[in-house]
C-alpha cells in the first residue's frame, strides 16, 4: 500500500502544478488565457502519459533500462519528413500550415515505417533485440544525413520553420488535435492495459516467461508496435523529445521499488506530468521563452543518463 500512497502524493503534486500553471498570474483572463493554457496542459498530460507508457513497455521488452523507443529512428524520420515537406513544398504549403494535415501525415509516415521495419525484421525469424535496435539507429543516421543535406540548402527564412519543428513545443498545439490524440491514446492504452501482468512476467526473462505460458514473441511484437504508435502520436503532437521517456521511466523505477507494471507505468505517467507542466512553467516564467523545453529535457536527461550508466555498473 505504500506504493499507493506515493502515487497519491505524486498525483496531488501533478494536480497542484497544473493548477498553478493554469491560474497563476491569470489576471482574470478567463475567456482568453485560461482556455489556451488549458489546451497546453491537456497536451502535456497526453504526451506525458503516451511517452511514459511507451518507454516503460519498451524497456521491459528490451530488458534494458537505458533505452528509449525513439532510438528506432522515429525522431529522425519526423525531422526528415518536416524538412522534406518544407524543402519541396515550401513553408506555406497546406501540409505545413495545416496542423491536422501535418499531424496525420506525420503519424502515418512513422507508423508505416515502424510496421515495415518490424515486418522486415521478423520475416527473417526472431532477431535478437539489440540487432533490431542497431538497424533502427542506422536508419536514424540515414534519415539525418538526408535532413542535414536538405537543411543546408534551405532558404534561411524557411529554415526558421524547420528549426521550430526540431524542438518539442507545447506552445501551438491545436485543440482539435488534442482531442484526436486523446481518443487514439485512450483506446490504445485501454486495450493494452490488461497485458500489464504479462509484462510483469516478461521481466523474469524469456525462458521463465515462456515457461509461465506467456506467448513471448507475439507479446513482444504487439508491444513494440504499440510503443511505436504512441511515440509517433506524441512526436507528431509536440515534436521530438528524445530523453524524456528515459528520465521518467527510471525515476519511476527508483521511486516505486515494484515490479508491477500497473504501478510503474502509472508512476511514470504522473511523474511526466509533473515534469512537463513544471518544466514548461519554468521555461515560460524563468527563461521567458528564451529556450525550449526539449532542450532543457535533453540536457538534464543526458546527465541523468550518464549517472544511470555509471550507477548501474557500480551496483553489479
Amino acid at each position, binding site marked *: 500500500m505504500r506504493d499507493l500512497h506515493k502515487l497519491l502524493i505524486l498525483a496531488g503534486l501533478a494536480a497542484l502544478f497544473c493548477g498553478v500553471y493554469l491560474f497563476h498570474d491569470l489576471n482574470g483572463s478567463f475567456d482568453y488565457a485560461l482556455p489556451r493554457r488549458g489546451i497546453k496542459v491537456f497536451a502535456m498530460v497526453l504526451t506525458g502519459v503516451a511517452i511514459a507508457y511507451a518507454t516503460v513497455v519498451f524497456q521491459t521488452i528490451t530488458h534494458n533500462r*537505458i533505452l528509449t523507443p525513439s532510438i528506432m529512428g522515429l525522431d529522425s524520420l519526423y525531422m526528415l519528413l518536416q524538412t522534406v515537406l518544407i524543402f519541396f513544398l515550401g513553408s506555406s504549403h497546406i501540409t505545413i500550415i495545416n496542423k491536422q494535415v501535418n499531424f496525420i501525415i506525420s503519424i502515418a509516415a512513422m507508423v508505416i515505417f515502424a510496421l515495415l521495419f518490424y515486418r522486415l525484421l521478423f520475416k527473417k525469424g526472431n532477431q535478437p533485440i539489440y540487432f533490431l*535496435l*542497431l538497424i533502427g539507429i542506422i536508419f536514424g543516421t540515414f534519415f539525418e544525413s538526408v535532413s542535414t543535406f536538405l537543411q543546408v540548402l534551405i532558404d534561411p527564412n524557411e529554415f526558421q520553420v524547420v528549426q521550430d519543428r526540431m524542438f518539442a513545443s507545447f506552445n501551438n498545439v491545436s485543440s482539435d488535435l488534442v482531442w484526436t490524440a486523446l481518443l487514439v491514446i485512450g483506446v490504445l492504452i485501454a486495450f493494452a492495459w490488461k497485458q500489464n501482468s504479462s509484462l510483469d512476467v516478461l521481466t523474469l526473462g524469456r525462458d521463465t516467461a515462456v515457461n509461465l505460458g506467456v506467448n513471448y514473441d507475439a507479446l513482444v511484437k504487439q508491444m513494440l508496435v504499440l510503443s511505436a504508435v504512441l511515440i509517433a502520436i506524441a512526436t507528431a503532437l509536440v515534436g521530438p523529445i528524445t530523453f524524456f521517456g528515459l528520465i521518467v521511466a527510471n525515476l519511476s523505477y527508483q521511486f516505486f521499488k515494484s515490479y508491477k507494471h500497473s504501478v510503474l507505468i502509472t508512476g511514470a505517467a504522473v511523474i511526466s506530468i509533473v515534469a512537463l507542466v513544471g518544466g514548461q512553467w519554468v521555461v515560460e516564467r524563468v527563461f521567458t521563452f528564451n529556450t*525550449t523545453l526539449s532542450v532543457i529535457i535533453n540536457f538534464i536527461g543526458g546527465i541523468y543518463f550518464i549517472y544511470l*550508466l555509471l550507477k548501474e555498473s557500480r551496483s553489479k
Partner: protein
Amino acid sequence: MKKRYLIPALIILSFVSLFVGVSSISLMDLFDFQSEETQIFLISRLPRLVAILLAGAGMSMAGLIMQQLSRNKFVSPTTAGTLDATRLGILVSMLLFANASMIEKMAVAFAFALAGTFLFMQILNRIKFKDAIFIPLVGLMFGNILSSVTTFFAYRADVIQNMSAWLQGDFSMIMKGSYELLYISVPVFIVAYIYANRFTVAGMGEDFSKNLGLKYRSIVNIGLTLVALITATVVLTVGVIPFLGLIIPNIISIFKGDHLQKTLPHTAMLGAIFLLLCDILGRVLIFPYEISISLMVGVIGSFIFLFLLFRGRAYA
C-alpha cells in the same frame, strides 16, 4: 582485397577525380602553367584530391584503432561520441573565439574530441555488460547527449543552420589554403603504423598485454589521442563523414583478419578509395550541382552496413 587491386584502383580513381568537375580540364591544359585551367587544377582539384585521400584514410584508420582498443567491431568515431564531442568543440570555438585562427579552433576541437573519446572509454570500462551491440548503443546515446548540449548553445546563439552547414561533410569548398591542416594526419599515420603491433596486443585485453609486458594504459592513451587528432582535423576541414570509420575496417577485417600491422595499410587505402568513389558519384549524379559527401557516404554506408549486419552476424 590484395594490394595489387587496391593500388591501381586508387590511382585510377585519383585521376578521374582530378578531371571531373564543372570546368573541364584536359591533360594538355596543364602544360600551360599560366592558363586558367592550371590554376583551377592547382587551387581546387589537387587540394580536393589530397583532402579526400587523407580524410578517407584517416577516418578509416581512426575507426580501426578504436575497434581494436575497445574490442568491439561496432565502435567508431561516429558510434562513440567522438564526432559529437568534436562538434561541441567547434561550436565552443565559434562562440568564444569568433576570430580564432584555424589552428586555435583546431586545438579546441581536438581537446573536446580527446575528452569525449576518453570519457566514452571510461564509461565503457565501467560497464560490466559488454554485449557486442550494446556498446555502440551506449556510444550513440553518449553522442546524443553531447549533441543536445551543442544544440542548447547553438539555439541560444541562433547558429543552428550555420552549424549544420559547417559540419556537413563537403569537399566542394576545399581550396588551397583551407585544407593543409589535414597534413597533420600524415605523421599520425606513421605513429599508428609504428604502434600497430602494440594496438593488436592491447586489443586482446589488459591482462593479456600486461602478461606480455606492455604498458596497457599508455598504449590505449596513445591510440585514443591519434583517433581524436584525426577526427578533429577531418571535421574541421571537411566536416562530418558518417560511417566511414565503421564500414571500412569491418570489410578489411572480413578479408584480412585483425592483425593491425597487416591490415592498417589496406584499411587506409580502401577508406580513400571508398571516399573517392562517393565523391566522384556525388559530383557526377546531379551535374553540374554536387551532392554532399556526407549524404553520399551516409546513404551508401547505411546500405553497406546493413548488408554487413545481415550477412555476417556471427562474425560481428
